[in-house]
């Protein structure tokens, strides 16, 4: 584990606009501030939306951008933590995998699965054309 100082938070005060006295802002603010700016590029929301396959209008992109930037900036505080030689944990690891044998089984409510398909014809799930013009 790194030194205690290295574990303190970095946060930009303007990121937090708490209005209520009960807000636990000290968990975010009442620590030593790190001003080290992340060298990472700010998120390009239009491109992210395309990657995530969510159609956003330019106006929606504009609305999301500052909010996402604010949170991503807040994520950035982990850059200041000394994590050298610490192994990442993919989950809580309370127990190893209990994989079942890799044998196919038959689901007994097949009709209900098919009934849930929004666009179904004969034995096919119907989708618009997959290939682009070019």
């Amino acid at each position, binding site marked *: 584990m790194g030194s205690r100082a290295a574990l303190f938070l970095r946060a930009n005060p303007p990121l937090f606009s708490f209005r209520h006295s009960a807000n636990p802002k000290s968990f975010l603010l009442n620590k030593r501030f790190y001003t080290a700016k*992340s060298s990472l590029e700010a998120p390009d929301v239009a491109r992210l939306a395309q990657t995530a396959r969510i159609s956003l209008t330019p106006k929606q992109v504009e609305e999301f951008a500052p909010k996402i930037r604010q949170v991503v900036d807040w*994520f950035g505080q982990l850059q200041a933590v000394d994590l050298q030689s610490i192994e990442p944990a993919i989950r809580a690891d309370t*127990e190893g995998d209990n994989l079942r044998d890799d044998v196919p089984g038959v689901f007994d*409510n097949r009709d209900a699965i098919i009934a849930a398909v929004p666009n179904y014809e004969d034995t096919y799930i119907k989708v618009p054309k997959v290939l682009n013009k070019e």
Partner: protein
Amino acid sequence: MLSSAQAPRLLRSPAAATTTAAALTIKCLHTSPILTPAATSPSPSQILTTRKSLLSRQTSAVDLAKSFLQRLRRHEPQLSSFLYVSPDDVVLKQAEELDTKIKNNEEVGPLAGVLVGVKDNICTYDMPSTAGSRILENYRPPFDATAVRKLRDSGAIVVGKTNLDEFGMGSTTEGSAYQVTANPWDLSRVPGGSSGGSAAAVSARQCMVALGSDTGGSVRQPASFCGVVGLKPTYGRVSRYGLVAYASSLDVIGCFGSSVADAGILLHSISGFDNFDATSSKQEVPDYASQFVALEYLESKPLKGLRVGVIHETLENGVDSEVISSVRGAVSHLEELGCTVSEVSLPSFSLGLPAYYILASSESSSNLSRYDGVRFGNQVFGEELNSLYGDSRAEGLGSEVKMRILMGTYALSAGYYDAYYKRAQQVRTIIRNSFKDALEKNDILISPAAPSVAYKIGEKKNDPLAMYAGDIMTVNVNLAGLPALVLPCGFDGGSAGLPVGFQMIGAAFDEEKLLKIGHIFEQTLPGYSFVPPLVADEWTG
């Protein structure tokens, strides 16, 4: 389930419990003043009371179901805790079948006649399961979640599906695509979230117990806000099969009850290994209820020798002073019960919050890619496939969900993975280790369940970081995969105020200890009734 060593108090009908509680006061006074039963009778187990009165034919499952359905419907217009309520005839038919079995002296399950609410991100084959999202509006899964199947096999009756923040992403239940749930203690306030519907429903006695899910505190924080017991089991204790995935490395199904006993009995019935969830554990499931000790059998210092560590970082500035004093009061009560209390420092505690949000967003961006409008859910048909995906997701997903998917997509993109996702996983290792150290020196750890009591509807709606900050007390426990029990311990502003809950964190798979301590705690905590005024007049349980 009912062993002969069972607490006799729990086997009594509610009417009998009152008189005996008075008798117990006299009996216990000479041993120790702290063992005086609460001025208002301690929360009896609704599950055990139901079982006793059904088997002794004092009441019928049909009558019981009718009275709950009536109360559910009476308060539903004010509370909006349910997204779907099972039709009366469907519920009553199941109750009738139980009554017939009891009449014929056939065996009935341990949860016979127990009326359960199920969070709407847990699949039920006979009811819609929307996860609070438009993209799954009217969706009926072709199967029951394992936890639901186990409940039904134990004789429980599912009364309906409870409201939640869309896909579990939120801390107020305002993020539901359908309705905003009100807190039964103050209708202008949030019930917490994301399992706010389940917490409100149990609090207002619309059902006896409920299932929720907890990815970063979604069972424990609403339990605290609504004055009920909330139990987050160890990761792997309960199968996640049929739980709509949000962040698979953190998600667990959890339990709500109006007493520790109910939460424990509910957990027992849904726990265990499941072939359909490779992360479910093969560890034996103890009969939690058999560990409960009734008030009259308690020694003067029933928790003698138990080491309790109070997490220093959770009682600092930024936490409501009323919350701090209630939790300190709970700690003194544990001390009076014989516990040895010390303070523990977890310096990495505050790092859990950003690490949690990075991991949860990243996992959600992957998990929620399945909602593309092709195989199930709502579809916006388009000219070509990509616009079908994009438009279906744009129409069907709410803004908080979109935001988390976009943040997760960013954190996982090439070149950023090491800076965000991997770092967050390293922080998870630090947090896991620090809990492990602290739990080697202590039997349980204590913190508030949330930094504040329930706040006003709308107060944090447009300020994501303010809402995220409210999860500080709970997210670390998910990162470490540990079990935690939240139970009410006091009120903000005296007995007329809002309930405050405190959190007990245990070692992995040590739910038994948490429940045993919690059961003693709630029986001996003096002076509080955690039935909201809204239903106090009509509730005799």
